[in-house]
């Protein structure tokens, strides 16, 4: 393509016409393709023909404006854009790190809270058990006291009853002896005997001894 154009341009330069129209070799073969080059170039007499890229006359212009552009772009980017983007990126990095650390802290706190909760629960349980044991002991003590008191009362009553029974029995013994003495004396009298009080008493005593046992 380039050589074609070069050739065309060279031909154009040779013809040195106002509006340069170059008929390519292809056109002579009947392809009817016309490559036009240098219509603008013809207006600038000094401009070299060929690739516009190889036109050395414009190099100074291009280089000058390129250097201006690059310097401006470099200054703006290095003074404004890059510090800003770097700051944003480091802020973001900081925020992410900070958030992660905060999350870790919260996690630690949650763990501590859980431990405290567990500890409180265990303490409460121990305390409850202690209270239960204490109450049980207290109740047991009261119960024991009540049982002891009841036992004492029962013992007292039993003793009292036994005393009374013994009294009753004693009094009954005495009265039985009196009755027996009277009945024996009366029987003897009835059968016409004389009452020997001493013999009666002795007989009664020996008989009562066996009965009283």
């Amino acid at each position, binding site marked *: 393509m380039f050589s074609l154009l070069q050739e065309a341009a060279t031909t154009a330069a040779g013809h040195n016409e106002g509006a340069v129209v170059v008929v390519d070799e292809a056109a002579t073969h009947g392809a009817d393709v016309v490559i036009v080059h240098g219509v603008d170039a013809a207006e600038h007499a000094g401009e070299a023909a060929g690739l516009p890229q190889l036109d050395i006359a*414009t190099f*100074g212009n291009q280089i000058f404006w390129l250097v201006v552009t690059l310097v401006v*772009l470099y200054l703006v980017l290095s003074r404004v854009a890059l510090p800003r983007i770097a700051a944003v990126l480091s802020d973001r990095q900081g925020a992410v790190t900070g958030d992660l650390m905060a999350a870790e802290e919260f996690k630690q706190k949650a763990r501590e809270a859980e431990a405290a909760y567990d500890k409180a629960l265990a303490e409460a349980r121990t305390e409850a058990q202690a209270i239960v044991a204490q109450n049980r002991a207290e109740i047991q003590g009261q119960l024991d006291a009540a049982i002891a008191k009841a036992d004492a009362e029962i013992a007292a009553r039993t003793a009292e009853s036994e005393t009374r029974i013994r009294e009753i029995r004693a009094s009954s013994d005495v009265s039985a002896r009196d009755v027996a003495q009277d009945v024996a004396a009366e029987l003897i009298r009835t059968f016409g005997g004389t009452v020997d009080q001493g013999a009666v008493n002795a007989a009664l005593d020996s008989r009562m001894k066996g009965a009283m046992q």
Partner: protein
Amino acid sequence: MATEATGGGLEFHPMDQFVVKPLFGAGEVHWYTPTNVTLWLALTALAAIALLVLGTRGRAIVPNRSQSVAEMAYGLVHKMIEDIAGKDGLRYFPYVLTLFMFIVFANLLGLVPMAFTVTSHIAVTGVLAMAVFLGVTIIGFVKNGAHFLDLFWIRSAPLAVRPILAVIEVISYFVRPLSLSIRLAGNMIAGHAVIKVFAGFAAIAAVAPIAIIAVVGMYAFEVLVAFVQAYVFTILTCVYLKDALHPSH
């Protein structure tokens, strides 16, 4: 576009889009004349500034769309330098980012219909490449002194082949600015010229659908090329910077 049917034939002007013209009126192009180059250079700089300065004016922790793109560009170049040239290469990050933003926006703006592609000119890419070449060479000698020449004297190779390798290394070193500039300009010239040629064929009714599909396809391809060439230029700059900072192989 640049093609008009005259007398039943076809006229192709695939290279007219690259002609440097004064913006106001006709006449000589002096070094100070505002030309279409000036206009598109300014637009390129403004586009880069719009993205990186206006786009980030929110300074948001959670970025919006333009700030995300700006941060992505920043991150891309930052990571590239750090990975290739190492931590000490980050000193030159502002200039490398300027290069990348300039080239990528110049390439992309050049794809706007009727636009002028500044990176299709050898003069422009040549200056960019020479700036990298000279900068890297100066950094190399300032940082390493004469040890910078170790770059050409490969100690890991057998002594016998070292002189031959040194010659090859020196040649390849001095070819760098040439390959950098011609790769970028050549890609831009070729892509744009091919699009113009296809567009010219669209004037013929019989092949117009094919020509239009081809233009669309080429355009999509050129968008990719625009980005890839900016990326390649930047990554090679980083590689050269690495050589300058750490010349021993």
